Protein backbone atom coordinates (compact mmCIF):
# COMPACT_ATOMS: atom_id res chain seq x y z
CA UNK A 1 0.00 0.00 0.00
CA UNK A 2 1.36 3.40 -0.99
CA UNK A 3 2.24 5.74 1.89
CA UNK A 4 -0.01 8.76 1.86
CA UNK A 5 0.10 11.95 3.83
CA UNK A 6 -3.35 12.84 5.06
CA UNK A 7 -3.97 16.57 5.29
CA UNK A 8 -7.26 17.79 6.60
CA UNK A 9 -9.61 19.66 4.27
CA UNK A 10 -10.28 23.33 4.67
CA UNK A 11 -13.77 24.72 4.50
CA UNK A 12 -12.92 27.98 2.84
CA UNK A 13 -9.62 29.39 1.67
CA UNK A 14 -6.79 28.66 -0.74
CA UNK A 15 -4.69 25.64 -1.62
CA UNK A 16 -1.41 26.43 -3.33
CA UNK A 17 -0.38 23.21 -5.02
CA UNK A 18 2.47 21.91 -7.19
CA UNK A 19 5.05 24.14 -5.61
CA UNK A 20 8.68 23.44 -6.40
CA UNK A 21 10.03 21.36 -3.47
CA UNK A 22 11.71 23.58 -0.91
CA UNK A 23 9.82 26.78 -1.78
CA UNK A 24 6.88 26.43 0.62
CA UNK A 25 8.56 28.05 3.62
CA UNK A 26 9.68 31.02 1.53
CA UNK A 27 6.13 31.46 0.29
CA UNK A 28 4.85 31.26 3.86
CA UNK A 29 7.16 34.15 4.62
CA UNK A 30 6.13 36.13 1.52
CA UNK A 31 2.44 35.73 2.41
CA UNK A 32 3.11 36.66 6.05
CA UNK A 33 1.24 33.58 7.23
CA UNK A 34 2.95 33.22 10.58
CA UNK A 35 0.78 35.88 12.16
CA UNK A 36 -2.44 35.38 10.23
CA UNK A 37 -4.87 32.65 9.23
CA UNK A 38 -4.33 29.00 10.18
CA UNK A 39 -2.33 27.18 7.52
CA UNK A 40 -0.83 23.79 6.73
CA UNK A 41 2.44 23.24 4.91
CA UNK A 42 3.30 19.95 3.24
CA UNK A 43 6.78 19.54 1.84
CA UNK A 44 8.31 16.94 -0.44
CA UNK A 45 5.07 15.05 -0.88
CA UNK A 46 4.51 12.80 -3.91
CA UNK A 47 2.69 14.50 -6.73
CA UNK A 48 0.42 12.70 -9.16
CA UNK A 49 3.15 13.02 -11.78
CA UNK A 50 5.39 10.88 -9.57
CA UNK A 51 7.47 13.89 -8.60
CA UNK A 52 7.90 15.69 -5.32
CA UNK A 53 6.09 18.90 -4.57
CA UNK A 54 5.30 21.30 -1.76
CA UNK A 55 1.79 22.41 -0.91
CA UNK A 56 0.21 25.07 1.32
CA UNK A 57 -3.38 25.16 2.56
CA UNK A 58 -4.53 28.43 4.03
CA UNK A 59 -7.78 28.68 5.92
CA UNK A 60 -10.08 31.61 5.20
CA UNK A 61 -7.63 33.54 3.04
CA UNK A 62 -7.62 34.44 -0.64
CA UNK A 63 -4.57 35.76 -2.45
CA UNK A 64 -4.06 39.02 -4.27
CA UNK A 65 -2.62 39.20 -7.80
CA UNK A 66 0.64 40.56 -6.40
CA UNK A 67 0.91 37.54 -4.12
CA UNK A 68 0.26 35.03 -6.90
CA UNK A 69 2.76 36.93 -9.10
CA UNK A 70 5.44 36.40 -6.48
CA UNK A 71 4.52 32.74 -6.12
CA UNK A 72 4.83 32.32 -9.90
CA UNK A 73 8.40 33.57 -9.77
CA UNK A 74 9.37 30.88 -7.25
CA UNK A 75 7.17 28.13 -8.65
CA UNK A 76 6.15 28.73 -12.27
CA UNK A 77 3.97 25.58 -12.36
CA UNK A 78 2.07 26.20 -9.13
CA UNK A 79 -1.70 26.01 -9.10
CA UNK A 80 -4.03 28.12 -6.99
CA UNK A 81 -7.20 26.37 -5.84
CA UNK A 82 -9.97 28.45 -4.34
CA UNK A 83 -11.99 26.48 -1.82
CA UNK A 84 -15.57 27.33 -0.87
CA UNK A 85 -17.77 25.00 1.18
CA UNK A 86 -14.99 22.39 1.13
CA UNK A 87 -15.09 22.22 -2.66
CA UNK A 88 -12.74 23.60 -5.30
CA UNK A 89 -14.68 26.50 -6.77
CA UNK A 90 -11.86 27.76 -8.99
CA UNK A 91 -8.53 26.36 -10.05
CA UNK A 92 -5.89 28.17 -12.03
CA UNK A 93 -2.26 27.84 -12.92
CA UNK A 94 -0.05 30.75 -12.05
CA UNK A 95 1.63 32.55 -14.94
CA UNK A 96 4.81 34.59 -14.64
CA UNK A 97 3.59 38.20 -14.95
CA UNK A 98 4.59 40.34 -17.92
CA UNK A 99 5.08 43.24 -15.55
CA UNK A 100 6.15 43.36 -11.91
CA UNK A 101 5.15 46.60 -10.25
CA UNK A 102 6.10 47.55 -6.72
CA UNK A 103 6.66 44.07 -5.35
CA UNK A 104 10.40 43.46 -5.73
CA UNK A 105 13.50 45.57 -5.18
CA UNK A 106 15.86 46.19 -8.07
CA UNK A 107 18.98 44.02 -7.69
CA UNK A 108 21.05 46.89 -9.12
CA UNK A 109 22.10 48.67 -5.94
CA UNK A 110 22.75 51.94 -7.81
CA UNK A 111 19.28 51.98 -9.37
CA UNK A 112 17.26 55.08 -8.45
CA UNK A 113 14.53 52.85 -6.99
CA UNK A 114 16.92 51.91 -4.19
CA UNK A 115 17.51 55.51 -3.15
CA UNK A 116 14.21 57.25 -3.96
CA UNK A 117 10.86 56.02 -2.70
CA UNK A 118 9.31 55.74 -6.16
CA UNK A 119 8.33 52.08 -6.47
CA UNK A 120 9.83 49.53 -8.83
CA UNK A 121 8.69 48.32 -12.22
CA UNK A 122 10.05 45.44 -14.26
CA UNK A 123 8.93 44.38 -17.72
CA UNK A 124 9.36 40.80 -18.95
CA UNK A 125 11.69 40.49 -21.89
CA UNK A 126 12.83 37.14 -23.29
CA UNK A 127 12.13 35.36 -20.03
CA UNK A 128 13.98 37.96 -17.94
CA UNK A 129 12.82 41.12 -16.21
CA UNK A 130 14.06 44.52 -17.34
CA UNK A 131 14.04 47.39 -14.86
CA UNK A 132 12.01 50.25 -16.33
CA UNK A 133 14.32 52.75 -14.63
CA UNK A 134 17.94 51.53 -14.81
CA UNK A 135 17.34 49.38 -17.95
CA UNK A 136 19.23 46.37 -16.57
CA UNK A 137 17.76 42.90 -17.00
CA UNK A 138 17.62 40.22 -14.34
CA UNK A 139 16.76 36.55 -14.18
CA UNK A 140 14.31 35.51 -11.47
CA UNK A 141 17.17 34.04 -9.42
CA UNK A 142 18.78 37.48 -9.12
CA UNK A 143 15.84 38.95 -7.20
CA UNK A 144 15.58 38.77 -3.46
CA UNK A 145 12.20 37.08 -3.46
Amino acid sequence: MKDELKVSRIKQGTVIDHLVPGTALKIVKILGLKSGSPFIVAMNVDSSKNRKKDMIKIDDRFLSKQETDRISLLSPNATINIIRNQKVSDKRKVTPPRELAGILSCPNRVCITNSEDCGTRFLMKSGKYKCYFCEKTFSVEEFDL
Partner: protein
Amino acid sequence: MNNMGLKSKDMISAADLTKAEVDSILKEADVMLSHIKRKKPLDMLKGRILATLFFEPSTRTRMSFESAMHRLGGSIIGFSGTEGTSVTKGETLRDTLRNVENYADAIAMRNPIEGSARLAADTVRIPVINGGDGSNQHPTQALLDLFTIKVEKGLKGTKVALCGDLKYGRTVHSLIYLLCMYGMDVRLVSPKTLRMPKHVLDDIKERYSYAPVEEESLDGVVGWADVLYVTRIQRERFPDQNEYERVAGSYFVDNETLKKAKKGMVILHPLPRVDEIRPEVDCTSCAKYFEQSFYGIAVRMALLKMLIGGNG
Protein backbone atom coordinates in the same frame (compact mmCIF):
# COMPACT_ATOMS: atom_id res chain seq x y z
CA MET B 1 11.72 71.63 -40.14
CA ASN B 2 9.47 68.80 -39.06
CA ASN B 3 10.51 67.85 -35.54
CA MET B 4 9.36 64.21 -36.00
CA GLY B 5 6.95 64.64 -33.12
CA LEU B 6 9.82 65.17 -30.67
CA LYS B 7 8.27 68.33 -29.24
CA SER B 8 7.59 67.97 -25.52
CA LYS B 9 9.15 64.52 -25.50
CA ASP B 10 12.02 63.41 -23.29
CA MET B 11 15.49 62.22 -24.29
CA ILE B 12 16.31 59.50 -21.79
CA SER B 13 17.86 56.53 -23.56
CA ALA B 14 19.27 55.83 -27.02
CA ALA B 15 17.23 52.64 -26.89
CA ASP B 16 14.04 54.77 -27.02
CA LEU B 17 14.92 56.40 -30.34
CA THR B 18 13.66 55.39 -33.77
CA LYS B 19 15.80 55.71 -36.88
CA ALA B 20 13.43 58.32 -38.27
CA GLU B 21 13.90 60.41 -35.12
CA VAL B 22 17.69 60.11 -35.26
CA ASP B 23 17.66 60.98 -38.96
CA SER B 24 15.70 64.13 -38.23
CA ILE B 25 18.00 65.13 -35.35
CA LEU B 26 21.07 64.70 -37.57
CA LYS B 27 19.41 66.74 -40.31
CA GLU B 28 18.52 69.53 -37.89
CA ALA B 29 22.08 69.42 -36.47
CA ASP B 30 23.40 70.03 -39.98
CA VAL B 31 21.28 73.18 -40.16
CA MET B 32 22.48 74.29 -36.74
CA LEU B 33 26.11 73.67 -37.70
CA SER B 34 25.75 76.00 -40.66
CA HIS B 35 24.21 78.66 -38.37
CA ILE B 36 27.16 78.31 -35.97
CA LYS B 37 29.68 78.55 -38.77
CA ARG B 38 28.01 81.68 -40.14
CA LYS B 39 27.94 83.08 -36.58
CA LYS B 40 24.32 83.92 -37.20
CA PRO B 41 22.42 85.00 -34.06
CA LEU B 42 19.20 83.04 -33.58
CA ASP B 43 16.07 83.70 -31.57
CA MET B 44 14.25 80.37 -31.96
CA LEU B 45 14.08 79.83 -28.20
CA LYS B 46 13.85 83.47 -27.14
CA GLY B 47 12.02 83.71 -23.83
CA ARG B 48 12.53 79.99 -23.10
CA ILE B 49 14.54 78.71 -20.14
CA LEU B 50 16.61 75.56 -19.83
CA ALA B 51 17.42 74.26 -16.33
CA THR B 52 20.76 72.46 -16.21
CA LEU B 53 20.80 70.25 -13.13
CA PHE B 54 24.22 68.65 -12.80
CA PHE B 55 24.43 66.56 -9.66
CA GLU B 56 27.91 65.35 -10.66
CA PRO B 57 30.84 66.96 -12.47
CA SER B 58 30.66 67.90 -16.12
CA THR B 59 32.56 70.26 -18.37
CA ARG B 60 31.49 69.57 -21.95
CA THR B 61 27.93 68.35 -21.52
CA ARG B 62 26.81 71.16 -19.26
CA MET B 63 28.68 73.94 -21.08
CA SER B 64 27.63 72.77 -24.53
CA PHE B 65 23.98 72.64 -23.43
CA GLU B 66 24.37 76.16 -22.09
CA SER B 67 26.16 77.35 -25.21
CA ALA B 68 23.47 75.73 -27.38
CA MET B 69 20.66 77.39 -25.43
CA HIS B 70 22.32 80.82 -25.57
CA ARG B 71 22.94 80.44 -29.31
CA LEU B 72 19.22 79.76 -29.79
CA GLY B 73 18.32 82.95 -27.92
CA GLY B 74 17.16 81.20 -24.75
CA SER B 75 18.48 81.43 -21.22
CA ILE B 76 19.80 79.13 -18.52
CA ILE B 77 19.26 78.47 -14.83
CA GLY B 78 20.54 75.60 -12.75
CA PHE B 79 23.39 74.25 -10.68
CA SER B 80 26.59 72.29 -11.01
CA GLY B 81 27.21 70.24 -7.90
CA THR B 82 24.63 70.02 -5.17
CA GLU B 83 26.39 72.35 -2.74
CA GLY B 84 24.14 75.34 -2.17
CA THR B 85 20.96 73.42 -3.05
CA SER B 86 18.35 71.78 -0.84
CA VAL B 87 19.66 68.38 -1.94
CA THR B 88 22.23 68.76 0.82
CA LYS B 89 19.32 69.10 3.27
CA GLY B 90 17.97 65.77 2.12
CA GLU B 91 15.45 66.94 -0.46
CA THR B 92 14.44 64.09 -2.74
CA LEU B 93 15.15 64.17 -6.46
CA ARG B 94 11.46 64.28 -7.25
CA ASP B 95 10.80 67.23 -4.96
CA THR B 96 13.71 69.11 -6.51
CA LEU B 97 12.34 68.42 -9.98
CA ARG B 98 8.77 69.40 -9.10
CA ASN B 99 10.07 72.83 -8.14
CA VAL B 100 12.36 73.23 -11.12
CA GLU B 101 9.54 72.51 -13.57
CA ASN B 102 7.89 75.72 -12.37
CA TYR B 103 10.99 77.69 -13.32
CA ALA B 104 11.99 76.28 -16.71
CA ASP B 105 10.74 74.99 -20.06
CA ALA B 106 13.05 71.97 -20.15
CA ILE B 107 15.56 70.19 -17.94
CA ALA B 108 18.98 68.80 -18.84
CA MET B 109 20.10 66.63 -15.94
CA ARG B 110 23.14 64.59 -14.96
CA ASN B 111 22.88 62.38 -11.90
CA PRO B 112 25.11 59.53 -10.72
CA ILE B 113 22.16 57.26 -9.95
CA GLU B 114 21.05 54.92 -12.74
CA GLY B 115 17.45 55.40 -13.82
CA SER B 116 17.27 58.91 -12.33
CA ALA B 117 16.57 60.44 -15.73
CA ARG B 118 13.63 58.09 -16.36
CA LEU B 119 12.23 58.97 -12.96
CA ALA B 120 12.68 62.67 -13.72
CA ALA B 121 10.80 62.30 -17.00
CA ASP B 122 7.95 60.54 -15.20
CA THR B 123 7.85 63.25 -12.53
CA VAL B 124 7.62 66.48 -14.51
CA ARG B 125 5.56 67.65 -17.47
CA ILE B 126 8.36 69.52 -19.24
CA PRO B 127 10.93 67.71 -21.47
CA VAL B 128 13.81 66.03 -19.64
CA ILE B 129 17.13 65.45 -21.37
CA ASN B 130 19.41 62.85 -19.84
CA GLY B 131 22.93 64.26 -19.57
CA GLY B 132 24.16 60.97 -18.08
CA ASP B 133 22.65 58.75 -15.39
CA GLY B 134 25.47 56.85 -13.71
CA SER B 135 26.78 54.08 -15.93
CA ASN B 136 23.49 53.69 -17.73
CA GLN B 137 22.91 56.08 -20.62
CA HIS B 138 24.16 59.30 -22.21
CA PRO B 139 22.01 59.64 -25.33
CA THR B 140 22.98 63.18 -26.36
CA GLN B 141 26.66 62.18 -26.35
CA ALA B 142 25.79 59.23 -28.60
CA LEU B 143 23.95 61.55 -30.97
CA LEU B 144 26.89 63.91 -31.21
CA ASP B 145 29.23 60.94 -31.67
CA LEU B 146 27.06 59.72 -34.53
CA PHE B 147 26.93 63.19 -36.02
CA THR B 148 30.74 63.38 -35.89
CA ILE B 149 31.02 60.01 -37.65
CA LYS B 150 28.57 61.23 -40.28
CA VAL B 151 30.58 64.41 -40.90
CA GLU B 152 34.02 62.82 -40.77
CA LYS B 153 33.47 59.39 -42.35
CA GLY B 154 29.85 58.99 -43.43
CA LEU B 155 27.47 56.47 -41.92
CA LYS B 156 27.22 53.85 -44.65
CA GLY B 157 29.42 50.80 -44.19
CA THR B 158 31.61 52.49 -41.60
CA LYS B 159 33.55 50.19 -39.28
CA VAL B 160 33.71 51.34 -35.69
CA ALA B 161 35.75 49.95 -32.81
CA LEU B 162 34.68 50.88 -29.28
CA CYS B 163 37.63 50.59 -26.94
CA GLY B 164 38.24 50.84 -23.18
CA ASP B 165 35.75 50.70 -20.35
CA LEU B 166 32.69 49.22 -21.98
CA LYS B 167 31.22 48.02 -18.70
CA TYR B 168 30.82 51.29 -16.84
CA GLY B 169 31.01 53.72 -19.78
CA ARG B 170 27.58 55.20 -20.36
CA THR B 171 28.54 56.81 -23.66
CA VAL B 172 29.21 53.43 -25.30
CA HIS B 173 26.02 51.96 -23.79
CA SER B 174 24.15 54.59 -25.79
CA LEU B 175 26.34 54.77 -28.88
CA ILE B 176 26.20 51.05 -29.66
CA TYR B 177 22.43 51.33 -30.25
CA LEU B 178 22.85 54.09 -32.81
CA LEU B 179 25.75 52.40 -34.61
CA CYS B 180 23.78 49.17 -34.96
CA MET B 181 20.66 51.11 -35.93
CA TYR B 182 22.61 52.40 -38.95
CA GLY B 183 23.97 48.96 -39.77
CA MET B 184 27.59 49.75 -38.98
CA ASP B 185 30.10 47.02 -38.31
CA VAL B 186 31.11 47.23 -34.63
CA ARG B 187 33.93 45.63 -32.68
CA LEU B 188 34.29 45.88 -28.94
CA VAL B 189 37.76 46.05 -27.36
CA SER B 190 38.12 45.83 -23.60
CA PRO B 191 39.71 43.84 -20.80
CA LYS B 192 37.59 40.80 -19.91
CA THR B 193 36.40 42.49 -16.72
CA LEU B 194 35.17 45.60 -18.56
CA ARG B 195 33.15 44.04 -21.36
CA MET B 196 29.92 45.50 -22.69
CA PRO B 197 27.11 44.38 -20.33
CA LYS B 198 25.26 41.28 -21.46
CA HIS B 199 21.87 42.96 -21.19
CA VAL B 200 22.95 45.55 -23.77
CA LEU B 201 24.34 42.92 -26.16
CA ASP B 202 21.20 40.80 -25.76
CA ASP B 203 19.04 43.80 -26.56
CA ILE B 204 21.17 44.67 -29.60
CA LYS B 205 20.89 41.10 -30.87
CA GLU B 206 17.13 41.09 -30.42
CA ARG B 207 16.63 44.44 -32.17
CA TYR B 208 19.17 44.22 -34.97
CA SER B 209 19.99 40.48 -35.20
CA TYR B 210 23.59 41.49 -34.77
CA ALA B 211 26.35 40.45 -32.37
CA PRO B 212 29.44 42.68 -32.35
CA VAL B 213 32.78 40.86 -32.20
CA GLU B 214 34.47 41.22 -28.80
CA GLU B 215 38.25 41.44 -28.56
CA GLU B 216 40.86 42.14 -25.94
CA SER B 217 43.61 43.54 -28.14
CA LEU B 218 43.70 46.96 -29.73
CA ASP B 219 46.19 45.63 -32.28
CA GLY B 220 43.45 43.50 -33.79
CA VAL B 221 41.26 46.47 -34.72
CA VAL B 222 43.45 49.46 -35.60
CA GLY B 223 44.06 48.14 -39.11
CA TRP B 224 40.35 47.38 -39.52
CA ALA B 225 38.48 50.38 -38.08
CA ASP B 226 37.44 53.55 -39.85
CA VAL B 227 36.61 55.02 -36.44
CA LEU B 228 38.41 54.20 -33.21
CA TYR B 229 36.24 55.35 -30.31
CA VAL B 230 38.36 55.39 -27.16
CA THR B 231 36.94 55.72 -23.65
CA ARG B 232 38.47 56.47 -20.30
CA ILE B 233 38.62 53.78 -17.67
CA GLN B 234 36.59 55.58 -15.05
CA ARG B 235 37.98 55.25 -11.56
CA GLU B 236 34.83 56.78 -10.02
CA ARG B 237 32.54 54.01 -11.31
CA PHE B 238 34.45 51.07 -9.85
CA PRO B 239 32.90 49.65 -6.68
CA ASP B 240 36.25 47.98 -6.00
CA GLN B 241 39.36 50.15 -6.40
CA ASN B 242 41.56 47.04 -6.66
CA GLU B 243 39.63 46.13 -9.80
CA TYR B 244 40.38 49.60 -11.16
CA GLU B 245 44.10 49.28 -10.44
CA ARG B 246 44.22 45.97 -12.31
CA VAL B 247 42.86 47.45 -15.55
CA ALA B 248 44.01 51.10 -15.41
CA GLY B 249 46.28 51.86 -18.36
CA SER B 250 45.25 48.71 -20.25
CA TYR B 251 45.02 50.59 -23.52
CA PHE B 252 46.59 53.67 -24.98
CA VAL B 253 46.88 55.17 -28.42
CA ASP B 254 50.14 56.81 -29.44
CA ASN B 255 51.94 57.51 -32.70
CA GLU B 256 53.21 53.91 -32.77
CA THR B 257 49.59 52.71 -32.73
CA LEU B 258 48.78 55.00 -35.63
CA LYS B 259 51.49 53.41 -37.81
CA LYS B 260 49.33 50.27 -37.92
CA ALA B 261 46.07 52.17 -38.49
CA LYS B 262 43.87 51.92 -41.56
CA LYS B 263 44.34 54.89 -43.87
CA GLY B 264 42.01 57.72 -42.95
CA MET B 265 41.07 56.26 -39.57
CA VAL B 266 39.74 58.85 -37.12
CA ILE B 267 39.92 58.74 -33.34
CA LEU B 268 37.00 59.90 -31.23
CA HIS B 269 36.75 60.19 -27.45
CA PRO B 270 33.87 61.51 -25.32
CA LEU B 271 36.47 63.24 -23.09
CA PRO B 272 37.86 63.83 -20.55
CA ARG B 273 40.83 61.61 -21.31
CA VAL B 274 43.52 60.68 -18.84
CA ASP B 275 46.31 58.79 -20.55
CA GLU B 276 44.50 56.58 -23.06
CA ILE B 277 45.29 58.94 -25.94
CA ARG B 278 48.80 60.33 -25.73
CA PRO B 279 49.09 64.12 -26.39
CA GLU B 280 51.37 63.44 -29.38
CA VAL B 281 48.29 62.12 -31.23
CA ASP B 282 46.48 65.47 -30.92
CA CYS B 283 48.29 67.07 -33.84
CA THR B 284 47.72 64.16 -36.24
CA SER B 285 44.92 64.09 -38.81
CA CYS B 286 43.40 61.11 -36.94
CA ALA B 287 42.53 63.18 -33.87
CA LYS B 288 38.93 64.37 -34.16
CA TYR B 289 37.91 64.47 -30.49
CA PHE B 290 38.01 68.24 -30.16
CA GLU B 291 35.94 68.63 -33.33
CA GLN B 292 33.59 66.03 -31.81
CA SER B 293 33.18 68.25 -28.76
CA PHE B 294 32.44 71.21 -31.07
CA TYR B 295 29.78 69.26 -32.98
CA GLY B 296 28.09 68.64 -29.63
CA ILE B 297 26.84 72.23 -29.67
CA ALA B 298 25.09 71.79 -33.04
CA VAL B 299 23.51 68.52 -31.95
CA ARG B 300 22.30 69.96 -28.65
CA MET B 301 20.94 73.04 -30.41
CA ALA B 302 18.98 70.71 -32.69
CA LEU B 303 17.66 68.74 -29.72
CA LEU B 304 16.66 71.81 -27.73
CA LYS B 305 14.87 73.28 -30.69
CA MET B 306 13.05 70.03 -31.44
CA LEU B 307 12.10 69.21 -27.83
CA ILE B 308 11.18 72.69 -26.59
CA GLY B 309 9.83 74.01 -29.88
CA GLY B 310 9.70 77.72 -30.44
CA ASN B 311 9.95 80.04 -33.40
CA GLY B 312 11.41 79.10 -36.76
